[in-house]
C-alpha cells in the first residue's frame, strides 16, 4: 500500500490527460458532425467501432504501432521517445473517451429546439455566435453527461494499463490476481471505483451549478476537482517522475508471481551492491521483450523456450543446451541483448494431474495418458492452446481430449484440484504443484521444449560491467525446488508472504548455496 501515492497519481495523470485530449478532439469534431450529415455518420461509426475493441487489446495494439513509429522517427528525425507505458495507454484511453463525448455533443446540439436557433439568427447572431451563445449552452447538460460517462470509463479502463507498462491502480489488481492476494485486488478496484465516483459527482455538481447559475456550487465543484486531480498528481510532481525520466536500473517483470519475485531478487541484489534499482512489473510477454531490446528496461528474466518459439519463430525441438546457446547467440546478434546465463530451473509447460487420480489410472507419462484422453478435459492458460507447443505435444503422443478450457493461472490450478478438468498444462516451477499435490507427467519423447529461466541484459545495460558482475552469481543458483517454494510463499492462501519477503528469503538461500 506504500505505492498508493504513485499508483493513484499515475492513474489520475493518465486519465485526466486522456480526458482532456479526448474532449479537445471530440468537441470540435462533434460540432462539425452536428452541422454535416456527411461527416456525422463516419465519425460516430469509427468511434463506435473503436469502442467495440476489447480494452486490453486496444492498449496492447498501440505498443507495436508506437514502436514502429519511434523507430521511424529516430531514423528520420533523430527523435526518440518511449513506446512503453505512458503513450500507448494515453492514446488508447483518449480513443475510448471519445465516443460518449462525441455522441452526446452531437445529440445535444441536434436536439436544440429549432425555434431557439431561429430566434438567435433573427436577432442577428452570426453562426459562431449562435453556436457558442445558444446551441452549446443549451446542449451543455447532455454534453456534460457524456463527459461523465467518459470519465467513469477511462478511470475503469486505465486499470488495464499495467501490462503495457503504465503504472496505475491496476497494478494492485494485476499483482493481486497473480499472487492470489484478493485484498490487493479489492483494494485496487475500490480505489479506482472511489476515484470514478468522486469525479463523476464533482462533474455532476459542476453541471447543476451551471444549470442553476449557482456560483457557490460551481466554486465548490471547481475546488473539489482541483483537490482531487491536484492531490492525485502531487506525489508525482514531488518526485518529478511524471515524465518517466529515470536515473536508476529498471528491472522488468511479466505478469506472474515468479517474475515478481525474481525481479525483486535482482533489484535487491543490485541494491546490496549499491546500485539503485527499481522494478516495473506486470508487463506483457512481448512488451517486456521489446522494452528490453529498446533499452526501456535494463534487465529481466525470460525463458529460453519462449524466445526460441515466440521471438525466433522456431518450431523444431532441440535439447536444452542447444536451445540455450542458439538463443544466446541470436539475442546478441539480432538485438544486442546479453544473456547472462540460466538461473538453474525451468518454467516449462508440464502436463499435471492430481496425484490420486494419476495413481488410480496408473498414469506416469504423457504417453500413458493418451489412452484416457477421450474422456478427459484439459485446462490451460489463455495462451497455451495458441502456442506451437500444444500441437507438438498433442501430435507427439496422439492426445484426443474430449474438451479444453482456458483459465487464468490461479483458477487453472483450482480447476484441476476440484476435478473440473482432469489435466492441466501447468508451469513446472509453480509452487502450487507441490501445494496441491499434483504430479507432473513425464515427457519421454522430449516433445516439450526446454524453458530454462535466463537472465537478460539490455544492450545499454550490457555496457555497464558492474551490472553484469553483480548479477552473475545468480546464474545457476536457483534450483527448481527453491523457486517453487518462493512462488508458493507469495501465492498461497495462508501465511502468505509479500514478494519482497519471498525475494529476501530466496536471496538468503542463494547466498547460502552460492560458492
Amino acid at each position: 500500500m506504500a505505492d498508493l501515492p504513485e499508483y493513484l497519481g499515475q492513474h489520475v495523470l493518465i486519465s485526466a490527460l486522456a480526458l482532456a485530449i479526448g474532449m479537445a478532439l471530440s468537441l470540435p469534431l462533434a460540432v462539425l458532425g452536428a452541422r454535416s450529415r456527411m461527416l456525422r455518420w463516419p465519425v460516430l461509426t469509427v468511434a463506435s467501432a473503436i469502442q467495440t475493441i476489447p480494452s486490453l487489446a486496444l492498449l496492447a495494439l498501440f505498443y507495436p504501432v508506437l514502436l514502429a513509429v519511434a523507430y521511424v522517427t529516430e531514423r528520420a528525425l533523430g527523435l526518440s521517445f518511449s513506446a512503453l507505458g505512458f503513450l500507448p495507454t494515453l492514446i488508447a484511453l483518449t480513443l475510448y473517451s471519445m465516443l460518449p463525448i462525441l455522441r452526446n455533443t452531437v445529440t445535444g446540439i441536434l436536439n436544440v429546439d429549432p425555434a431557439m436557433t431561429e430566434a438567435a439568427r433573427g436577432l442577428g447572431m452570426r453562426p459562431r455566435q449562435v453556436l457558442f451563445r445558444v446551441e452549446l449552452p443549451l446542449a451543455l447538460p447532455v454534453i456534460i453527461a457524456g463527459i461523465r460517462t467518459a470519465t467513469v470509463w477511462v478511470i475503469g479502463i486505465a486499470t488495464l494499463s499495467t501490462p503495457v507498462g503504465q503504472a496505475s491502480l491496476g497494478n494492485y489488481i494485476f499483482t493481486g490476481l497473480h499472487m492470489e492476494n484478493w485484498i490487493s485486488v479489492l483494494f485496487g478496484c475500490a480505489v479506482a471505483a472511489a476515484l470514478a465516483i468522486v469525479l463523476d459527482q464533482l462533474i455532476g455538481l459542476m453541471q447543476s451549478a451551471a444549470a442553476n447559475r449557482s456560483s457557490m456550487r460551481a466554486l465548490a465543484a471547481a475546488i473539489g476537482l482541483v483537490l482531487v486531480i491536484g492531490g492525485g498528481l502531487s506525489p508525482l510532481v514531488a518526485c518529478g517522475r511524471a515524465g518517466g525520466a529515470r536515473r536508476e536500473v529498471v528491472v522488468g517483470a511479466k505478469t506472474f508471481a515468479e517474475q515478481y519475485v525474481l525481479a525483486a531478487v535482482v533489484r535487491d541484489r543490485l541494491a546490496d551492491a549499491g546500485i539503485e534499482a527499481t522494478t516495473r512489473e506486470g508487463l506483457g510477454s512481448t512488451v517486456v521483450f521489446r522494452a528490453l531490446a529498446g533499452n526501456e528496461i535494463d534487465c529481466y528474466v525470460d525463458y529460453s523456450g519462449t524466445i526460441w518459439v515466440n521471438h525466433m519463430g522456431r518450431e523444431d525441438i532441440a535439447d536444452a543446451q542447444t536451445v540455450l546457446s542458439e538463443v544466446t547467440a541470436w539475442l546478441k546478434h539480432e538485438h544486442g541483448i546479453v544473456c547472462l546465463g540460466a538461473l538453474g530451473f525451468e518454467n516449462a509447460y508440464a502436463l499435471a494431474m492430481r496425484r490420486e487420480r494419476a495413481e488410480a489410472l496408473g498414469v506416469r507419462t504423457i504417453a500413458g495418458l493418451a489412452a484416457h484422453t477421450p474422456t478427459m478435459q484439459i485446462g490451460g492458460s489463455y495462451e497455451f492452446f495458441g502456442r506451437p507447443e500444444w500441437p507438438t505435444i498433442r501430435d507427439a503422443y496422439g492426445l484426443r481430449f474430449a474438451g479444453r478450457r482456458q483459465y487464468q493461472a490461479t483458477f487453472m490450478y483450482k480447476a484441476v484440484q476440484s476435478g473440473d478438468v482432469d489435466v492441466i498444462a501447468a508451469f513446472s516451477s509453480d509452487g502450487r504443484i507441490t501445494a496441491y499435490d499434483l504430479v507432473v507427467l513425464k515427457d519421454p519423447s522430449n516433445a516439450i521444449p526446454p524453458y530454462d529461466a535466463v537472465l537478460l541484459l539490455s544492450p545499454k545495460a550490457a555496457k555497464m560491467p558492474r551490472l553484469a558482475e553483480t548479477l552473475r552469481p545468480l546464474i545457476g543458483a536457483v534450483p527448481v525446488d527453491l523457486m517453487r517454494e518462493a512462488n508458493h510463499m507469495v501465492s498461497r492462501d495462508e501465511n502468505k508472504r509479500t514478494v519482497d519477503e519471498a525475494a529476501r528469503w530466496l536471496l538468503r538461500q542463494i547466498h547460502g548455496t552460492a560458492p
Partner: protein
Amino acid sequence: MIRLDHVSKSYDGGRTLAVRNLTLGVERGELMVLLGESGCGKTTTLKMINRLIESTAGRIEVDGQNVRDHDPVLLRRGIGYVFQRIGLFPHMTVAENVAVVPRLQGWTRPQVEERVRELLDLVDMPPAEFADRMPRRLSGGQQQRVGVARALAVRPKIMLMDEPFGALDPITRASLQDQYRRIHERLGLTTVMVTHDMTEALLMASRIAVLRSGRLLQVGAPHDLLTAPADAYVRQLMQTPKQQADRLAALVEEAEP
C-alpha cells in the same frame, strides 16, 4: 419604409410557390397586419424582409435600400423581431435576454444596463423584480413582454412580429395588444405583424394585407375591408368577427332592462 416589389418564394426551383409575385408597401409609422390562414405565405413574407428566408424573385427594400445589399446579420440587428413561440433563451435571465442585441453590437456594460432598465419599465416589468429571473419563472404574457423589450433593444425603426400573441390567453392577449399599440405610437415604429386572428388584425392594424395561397388578395384599412371586401374570400373572412360582434351586441341588449 418597406417595399416588396413582385416578390416570390419557391422551395423547389419554381414548381410551387409559397409567395407569388407579391407587391406591397408599408409606410413609415404604419402597423401593417399580414392576415391569412396557415400556409398562406404570411410568415414567409415576414421572414423575407429580414432575410431569415431569402426571396427567389423580386426586390425587397427597407428604408429605400435593397435588403440584398446588406449583410443579413447587420440587417437583422437593425430590425426588431418578435417570435411566434416567444423564443426567449431559457439559459439566460430576463436582463440577459433583453441585452442580447446590444451586446452583439458591442455596447458598454453601463449602456447595456441602462437600456435594459428602460426597456423593462417600458413593458411594465419592474427591473428590480424581473431582471434576474429565468424565463421559465415568468407567465406567458410576461415572457412575451420581455420578447417585445428584447426586440426593441437597439432602438429599431422597424418591428417584425410573427403571431406574437397567439399563445396567450384572451385577457392577456388583449392587454398586450393595447400595450404594444401604445408603444408603436409612442416610439413612432413601423410594424409588420403576422396573424390569423381576424379580430386582432381589425383592432390593431393601420392597414391589413389579406393573403391566400401566396397571393395578395386585398390591402386596406380595417374599415375598408369590412365595408368593401375585394372578393368572396375576404368577405367571408370579415364575416366572422362581424357576426361575433353582432351577437355580442344582441346579448348586451337582452341583458338591459
